[in-house]
């Protein structure tokens, strides 16, 4: 599968699509970027008068770029395989720096293992000056159904 096919297979739409560009993908990992639109609705409430991107959204962004794109690639590239859906099953993330509205972030993911349909990756997000914003591990099950 090429990058455009993977992006087209993502099941998300605005305002919950957090992938702009997929820069690299192979059987060992993925790299992509996203710029947080300052108009995203959650900035109105997180936090009042001081918008900052919620950690769950940073986690989701790492999951969409790292885990989901890679899971689609791996399942779609397997012999006779069909690109599946990826159901998030666990996350362990440390947060180092805030991400403000309008910031561009880059996510890199490395596969730890993909066995018995479970994909486990280490993921890292950096900001536009290359500082690590958050990192950790994320895993999910590659399924044929959208809702498990």
């Amino acid at each position, binding site marked *: 599968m090429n990058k455009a096919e993977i992006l087209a297979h993502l099941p998300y739409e605005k305002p919950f699509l957090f992938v702009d560009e997929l820069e690299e993908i192979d059987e060992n990992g993925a790299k992509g970027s996203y710029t947080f639109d300052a108009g995203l609705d959650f900035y109105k409430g997180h936090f009042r008068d001081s918008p900052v991107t919620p950690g769950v959204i940073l986690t989701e962004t790492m999951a969409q770029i790292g885990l989901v794109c890679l899971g689609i690639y791996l399942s779609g590239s397997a012999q006779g395989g069909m690109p599946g859906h990826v159901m998030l*099953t*666990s996350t362990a993330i440390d947060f180092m720096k805030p991400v403000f509205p309008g910031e561009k972030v880059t996510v890199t993911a490395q596969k730890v*293992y993909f*066995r*018995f*349909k*479970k994909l486990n990756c280490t993921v890292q997000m950096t900001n536009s000056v290359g500082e690590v914003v958050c990192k950790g591990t994320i895993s*999910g*099950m590659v399924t044929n159904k959208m809702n498990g």
Partner: protein
Amino acid sequence: MDREDLVAKLKEIVAPYTHDKDSLATISPSTDFIKDLKINSANLVDVILDVEEEFDIEIDNMEMARMLNVGETISIIEDKLKALDRK
């Protein structure tokens, strides 16, 4: 390694993924990983990977599909160890 030792080792492996500590305490060959120990499908994969590492064996997809309870898992481990002459 006898059956009791295998159950004890498997008990150690499943403990961190188990959400029913009472079922874990009374673990037996009929204990079901999902129904009794409340292990989810993603952590079931981790159980299998930990079994592979602990016993230095390789589990394939067909075997994985059978490993849903303690008894089946023990018998697969026993067969593997026997085949490798490492019982």
